[in-house]
């Protein structure tokens, strides 16, 4: 470490020397812009091209100074940074340096020793597209070679908590402007959000970016594509979401436990799944049925899915694979798939239910019922349909949030909190690498929901999530009684969550017989079970 530092010091001195020489070269070159460097301007920083050499050199000094003050890689700066004027990069760096070591600032430009190839700032800087600004200082120290266009040095990315708070406030102010139909103000604010978001890292940045995009769509009235392209794509996205965290697994395991308990003693069981997708919920149930004391019942599964754009029979493929699994573990299995654009289009007649079948029926819906509220009468139709099926149990899993309020601003704020928590849990639990496909696709999956909640209206807005309390009222008035999910479900869910990282981040909470998955104190998903009220 020390050796590098010393080498770095002499190089800085040398760079100082060469930079003063270079500085002259800069000034001689024609400056088409107002002297501000374009590449920096993209990021929102105003740095004069003539100052670039100076600023870069100071940043290198700063980085070295930071390097000597870090203990285990955690910069002591990160919590104390106050970034008064983010666009004045030069001034900020000076203030940082003076905090560290007042004497070090004097180094620049003093000792000039000739140095041949130590060119930190050459014309390549102009040619570098996009965000690559500085050369990589570590490379410089080690190799004395041409700089490689590389990442922005870490000094720039030191997280300013103040910027984070400002970001949230700007987002909310923008939403308020939209609420009051003040589009000019909203437009200006949404652009500012973009600038602020770049200075953030991690979950905050992603959430802000998605919300800013959704707000922009709302302001400019550029609505996202309609649902026709979505079905196979959204299945794939949900699969990645399944892989990336415990959310869907929690949903499946808790719902399965309720179904299993409701089916105890039955010899013929029939599950109607409103949300078949890839059928990931059913292997675990089939395995539990296979190992049931007394042997497995015969298991029939009816899956509902949206039409596929390429007319392929995705449902049948899923059914076939489930059949292979059932055959392997020795469960008698039958599958039927029905394609429907919306659950409200279904008719009880197609299900081939009759009392003479002597089968126990369960209806399952994971993240599907809320879509019905986009059209008037949709949810009532489906609840009536469910009642006419006469099921033993109805399992419903929904997002625990109210994203269906009448007032846009309330919806926005609620969604901001909910999805911030979601992204935070994804990042902190650290299951998948941040750049893995699962992570990225999960972000897209959630991003589409955000876009729908914020930017869409009317029948287009399908992500009309409601809270458990709201669903309780709805189900109660439709003629359903709650079924308590027992301690088995609770224990299984707790164990499942304990397998995931994030320390104690993920929690199972029991809420009057229903189970909720939460991240710290915020519930995210709620599973509830229902049966027909017996008069």
């Amino acid at each position, binding site marked *: 470490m020390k050796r590098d530092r010393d080498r770095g010091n002499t190089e800085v001195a040398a760079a100082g020397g060469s930079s003063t020489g270079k500085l002259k070269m800069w000034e001689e070159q024609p400056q088409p812009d107002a002297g501000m460097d374009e590449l920096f301007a993209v990021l929102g920083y105003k740095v004069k091209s003539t100052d670039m050499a100076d600023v870069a050199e100071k940043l290198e000094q700063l980085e070295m100074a930071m390097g000597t003050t870090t203990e285990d890689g955690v910069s002591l700066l990160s919590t104390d940074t106050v970034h008064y004027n983010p666009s004045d990069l030069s001034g900020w760096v000076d203030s940082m340096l003076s905090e560290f070591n007042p004497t070090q600032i004097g180094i620049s430009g003093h000792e000039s020793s000739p140095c041949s190839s130590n060119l930190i700032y050459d014309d390549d800087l102009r040619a570098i597209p996009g965000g690559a600004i500085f050369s990589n200082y570590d490379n410089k120290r080690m190799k004395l070679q041409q700089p490689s266009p590389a990442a922005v040095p870490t000094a720039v990315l030191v997280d300013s908590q103040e910027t984070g708070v400002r970001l949230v406030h700007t987002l909310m102010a923008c939403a308020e402007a939209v609420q009051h139909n003040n589009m000019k103000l909203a437009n200006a604010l949404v652009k500012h959000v973009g600038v602020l978001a770049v200075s953030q890292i991690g979950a905050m940045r992603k959430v802000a970016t998605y919300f800013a995009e959704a707000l922009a769509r709302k302001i400019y009235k550029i609505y996202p594509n309609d649902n026709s392209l979505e079905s196979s794509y959204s299945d794939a996205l949900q699969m990645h979401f399944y892989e990336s965290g415990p959310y869907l697994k929690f949903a499946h395991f808790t719902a399965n436990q309720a179904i299993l308990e409701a089916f105890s003693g039955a010899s013929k069981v029939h599950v109607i799944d409103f949300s078949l997708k890839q059928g990931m919920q059913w292997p*675990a149930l089939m395995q539990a049925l296979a*190992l049931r004391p007394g042997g497995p019942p015969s298991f029939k599964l009816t899956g509902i899915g949206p039409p596929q754009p390429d007319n392929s029979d995705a449902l049948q493929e899923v059914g076939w*694979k489930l059949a292979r699994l059932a055959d*392997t573990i020795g469960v008698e299995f039958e599958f039927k798939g029905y394609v429907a654009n919306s659950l409200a289009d279904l008719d009880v007649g197609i299900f081939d239910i009759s009392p003479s079948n002597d089968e126990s029926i369960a209806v399952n819906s994971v993240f599907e019922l809320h879509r019905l509220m986009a059209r008037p009468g949709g949810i009532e139709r489906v609840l009536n349909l469910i009642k006419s099926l006469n099921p033993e149990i109805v399992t419903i899993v929904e997002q625990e949030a109210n994203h269906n309020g009448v007032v846009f601003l309330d919806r926005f704020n609620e969604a901001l909190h909910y999805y911030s928590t979601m992204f935070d849990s994804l990042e902190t639990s*650290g299951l*998948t690498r941040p750049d893995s496909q699962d992570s990225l696709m999960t972000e897209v999956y959630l991003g589409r929901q955000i876009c729908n909640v914020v930017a869409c209206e009317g029948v287009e807005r399908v992500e009309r999530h409601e809270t458990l309390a709201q669903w309780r009222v709805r189900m109660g008035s439709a003629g359903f009684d709650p079924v308590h999910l027992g301690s088995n479900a609770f*224990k299984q869910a707790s*164990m499942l969550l*304990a397998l995931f990282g994030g320390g104690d981040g993920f929690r199972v909470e029991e809420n009057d017989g229903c189970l909720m998955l939460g991240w710290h104190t915020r519930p995210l998903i709620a599973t509830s079970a229902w049966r027909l009220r017996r008069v």
Partner: protein
Amino acid sequence: MSMEEKRGKFCINDNMDVLIEILKRLDDRSLGVAACVCRLWCALTRNDALWEHLCFRHLSPPPPDGVRTVVVALGGYRRLYMVCVKPVLSRLRQGKLIRMGTRHEVELSLSLFCVDYYERLLLGGRIGGADSPSSLMFLCKAVNV
């Protein structure tokens, strides 16, 4: 008796039942090491019954009969142990002795195992691949719980 004669008297490989009894008491890592000794030991340690014993030897009461059929059909006890039982227990017990003790842990492991099988079906219909699908990859990663 001379030294050579005494030495020649007992060879563990001639007493398979004793060898198996010893192997049954080892943990998974030692079994892996044992598998490298010679071809005979390699074959013996791959015997699924050994791994079944390893999975459930501390479970009381022992798992019901149907479990074996299902587990064997889904890929066998060795796979069950490596993919599900070991990670589940090490995560849940966090350093304490790894032994399958409760019914819930068994059920969870079996459910995850079945999901694992199904995912391999989804991925390409080829069962028997060595790589586990990503849904259970989280169990393979070291996690700071």
